């Protein structure tokens, strides 16, 4: 689409428009929506606050119910997004404010945080990493291994360029000297920029429940109690170790327990809804674990197994036939033995009795929560949220993509828990609605 200088109905000069659509969030929902819009010819800006696009999905191991490797599905989409001539991407950038100007446009303020690396010069060679003396927990591996203060987030990151974690950097300057392309520059600063766009797609995704508040499960206190996302990284192709290991002693576990509904369907933590994905990702991890550790036993403690989507029930049956043990139970507590093993205390529905069982690793299937920060970015107009702080769908029964603000559309888990296929369809719906909106404007 050519930028044509013309006065439209609202009297706005088209030449002042920077992008047709601002997509907030570069995860799989944002990428999908951006691609569909860009294919129609609109100019899109994706703003991602993290260092890479690809969101949560690019960090997963395999995906249910097909066991496709997640990277194989995400990376081509991510690279198509990065290459599309109608799409621009700012990573490490946050949207600070969105204000309606006249009727049909939005003024946007973004904060581009610097990487202290000149993005055009960095080749991703990682030589800086080798010389950096600082070691800190690697958040992209869910803190299971260390990274340097100057680092490339992960091998399939997009863009694959270095970033300096200035909070942990001691400014020794070794990386600056080492960099073969002189890409490191400590004088760079964060910058604010102002943009004008015609519409906005919200694709800010979700937060994971932090299980430390549920002290009865011992996460944070007992080393061999881990979250499913931590396990996901151990099973991923870009995994930190080449095997599945217990955090406490590096031993290969052989009797693993999964606890479902951690932080979901739980009024005591203020989240009564079901997270929709935990049953299936646990079922998937159980199958992968049986593949990775052929001698291991995997037990899933559940209330209900929500295998509802296309192929899910068959996938659950497959796990049962592989020997994954499902116990319908309410888990009351977890306690640690001296050797690091864990005792689960639970009420077993099949006997009606309180039982105890020892496992050497406990995985918490933590639920997903709304990422409500986006609400405060809207100035002068209220972005309505539902009681659980997900973006409210104004008209779920005839148009699931519209929000309480005209010209602002929702894609993926910003409106509630969703699995990947549903997220992609929802992003398609947001793209369809944004296209319809833009056509009407012109």
């Amino acid at each position, binding site marked *: 689409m050519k930028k044509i200088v013309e006065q439209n109905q609202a009297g706005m000069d088209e030449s002042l428009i920077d992008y047709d659509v601002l997509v907030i969030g570069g995860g799989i929902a944002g990428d999908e929506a951006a691609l569909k819009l860009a294919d129609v010819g609109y100019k899109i800006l994706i703003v991602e606050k993290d260092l890479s696009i690809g969101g949560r999905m690019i960090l997963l191991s395999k995906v249910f119910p097909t066991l496709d490797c997640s990277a194989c599905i995400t990376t081509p989409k991510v690279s198509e997004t990065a290459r599309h001539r109608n799409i621009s991407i700012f990573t490490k950038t946050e949207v600070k404010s969105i204000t309606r100007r006249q009727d049909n446009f939005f003024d946007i303020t973004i904060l581009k945080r610097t990487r202290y690396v000149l993005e055009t010069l960095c080749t991703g060679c990682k030589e800086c990493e080798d010389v950096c003396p600082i070691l800190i927990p690697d958040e992209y591996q869910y803190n299971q291994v260390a990274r340097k203060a100057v680092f490339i987030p992960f091998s399939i990151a997009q863009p694959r360029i270095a970033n300096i974690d200035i909070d942990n950097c001691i400014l020794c300057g070794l990386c600056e000297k080492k960099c073969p392309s002189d890409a490191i520059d400590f004088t760079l600063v964060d910058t604010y920029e102002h943009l004008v766009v015609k519409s906005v797609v919200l694709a800010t995704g979700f937060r994971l429940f932090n299980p430390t508040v549920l002290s009865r499960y011992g996460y944070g206190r007992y080393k061999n109690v881990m979250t499913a996302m931590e396990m996901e990284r151990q099973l991923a*192709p870009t995994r930190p170790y080449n095997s599945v290991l217990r955090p406490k002693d590096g031993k290969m576990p052989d009797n693993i327990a999964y606890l479902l509904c951690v932080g979901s369907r739980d009024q005591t933590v203020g989240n009564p809804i079901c997270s929709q994905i935990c049953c299936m990702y646990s079922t998937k991890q159980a199958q992968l674990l049986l593949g990775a550790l052929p001698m291991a036993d995997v037990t899933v403690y559940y209330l209900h197994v929500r295998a509802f989507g*296309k192929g899910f*029930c068959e996938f659950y049956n497959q796990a049962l036939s592989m020997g994954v043990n499902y116990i*319908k139970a309410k888990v009351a507590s977890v306690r640690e033995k001296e050797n690091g093993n864990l005792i689960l205390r639970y009420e077993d529905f099949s006997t009606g009795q309180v039982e105890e069982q020892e496992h050497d690793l406990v995985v918490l299937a933590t639920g997903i929560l709304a990422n409500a920060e986006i609400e405060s970015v809207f100035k002068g107009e209220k972005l309505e949220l539902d009681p659980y702080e997900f973006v409210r769908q104004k008209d779920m*029964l005839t148009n699931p993509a519209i929000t309480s603000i005209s010209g602002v559309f929702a894609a993926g888990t910003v409106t509630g828990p969703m699995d*990947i296929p549903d997220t*992609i369809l*929802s992003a*398609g719906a947001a793209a369809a609605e944004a296209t319809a909106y833009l056509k009407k404007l012109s």
Partner: protein
Amino acid sequence: MKKRIGVYVCHCGGNISDVVNVSEVVTAVKDMEGVAIAKNTLFACSDAAQNEIVNDITSLHLDALVIASCSPKLHLHTFRAVAERAGLNSYNYVQVNIREQCSWAHSYEKVSATGKAIQLVKSGIERVIFSRAMEPFSIPAEQSVMVLGAGIGGMRSAISLANVGLQVYLLEREFFIGGRTAQWGDLSAAYENGPEVVSRLFKQIREHANIHLFIGAELISQSGNIGSFEVKVKIKPRRISGDCDESGFNQAISICPVEVPDDFNFGLTSRKAIYQHYPSEYPAIPAIDDANCNFCGACESLCKSIDLNQKEEILNLKVGNIIVNTGFDPYEPTRGEFGYNEIERVLTLPQFKRLVDISGAGKLNFKGKQIHTITYIFCVGSRQGEEGENQYCSRYCCTTALNTAIIVKRKFADITNIHCTRGIRTYGKQELIYEESSRQGDIFLEFSFENMPVVEERNGKVFVRIKDILTANREMEAETDLVVLITGMVPRRNNNIAQMLKIPTGRDHFFNEIHAKLRPVETVIDGVLIAGTCQGPKNIMETLNSSMAAAAKSAASLSSGTIHLEPIVADVNTDQCTGCGICLTVCPFDAIVTAGPEDKPAVSIVISRCKGCGMCLPVCPEDAIELYGFTNEEMEGMIDGLTSY
């Protein structure tokens, strides 16, 4: 002949390299004739690897590319684009499948799998040696789409398509629009009912100049390609042309002597051969159903717009894409399944929903008796186990059943709901409906697949017996006034669309998309998209999302005005051709014509009609026909590669 071939063997994380020794494969092929470079790569599809390949192509002047990785169905286009970015023609790229058809299929035989991978890669190299550069054909894309089915999904697709400026032909096989949702009564949270949702969408349909709605319309034939499908549509006679004053229609309906079970109410009530389902229905005039009308003519005398001689019409349309949104059927239990059709007080969920909808508030009566206790049996026709027909979960039924139980309790006095479930699956925010039904005092029991509940009638009373998992498998029996079988979704019966459009179905017999995550609304037939419940069970919101996603995909593919088609077509060697014409008899597309001078007759291919199926190849007695991309050189080269040592 290609002389500078680049070969890349992908680890796919470990999906390939855990079984196949990737470096052994690279070593085995790197010295083959024509191979300029052979490498392994962690993820060939990653951006970094793509850039590396592009750099190699340009810096090493590669003239052909082989990537051994996953199935071409996943990434053929990804890697063709890589070739093109480096200035290499995309048809000089060959993808070798060493994942689905090697490492995954032979994961217990690492040595044999590595051996097989080596032969497969050699075969790909032999093929690419003979590959030739081709350019896709460009054809103009019709700026129109046909949508099949005017339920909420089809209407939603139509509105989204029309809003982006495309012409839409919306076809509904029935005489009334709205599909299943029109039958659905109060929806979850009960702030709106099915007919209201239908009329809100219909209002947009009616007001949109780009949408052309055909009712009683069926697709009868289809030909052509993405960008320009030619379709033939039959419009059944409604036998009512226009308006008639209301009393006229009412009189016509009451005079009609034919009475049949009303399928809109799932047989709970009856209707006439001239009928309308509910007053605000669209279109707001009745229809005459030919299957049951005896053409007595009684109604005709009462209303001048009734015309029993109305004829069917045939319409010819040209469209760029087709979106199939034909919905589902409720599962119909077999006779005697939980007493269905044997015990009068056993209904299916859709029947019960209609009963709730058409009964006035206050007391709920059925067959002359007031209903107090209702027992719901879940997963009827779904999750039928490893041996069963329907192994899948129907997704919407738990929520709908509980929501109905809530509505029943709100609308009628003295109701007790007993739910016999196989584990409630109110996923996501629908969990709140489960919570509400628990809070209102509904009783929950749970049975396992091995111990199904039993419904029995004794002395005119109905009993449900269940072994309850939630109380340590205690066996209990409840007397109940009504049993509701929570039936799932099954693919539509009488659906010839799949055969006509060649849409494959999945293991669950619903229409199958290419890839649930990468291409969730596309089928293997380019330009034919699927959405809504014809693809698998979905609730309303999920149906709308997929319907809009299909519209977005359609808009993206047609918006440039041009469609690029594969240049894989047949080619005749006129020197060898004798003009015998045998090939003309096997071509399904009339793409071969006789040509050439009289003394040297020969055939030639009409490229615009050729779809590249290759049916003409084996029948030629002179072996004078080749298919681009599948020439004798390429095919026999591949075979040589598979058998060389």
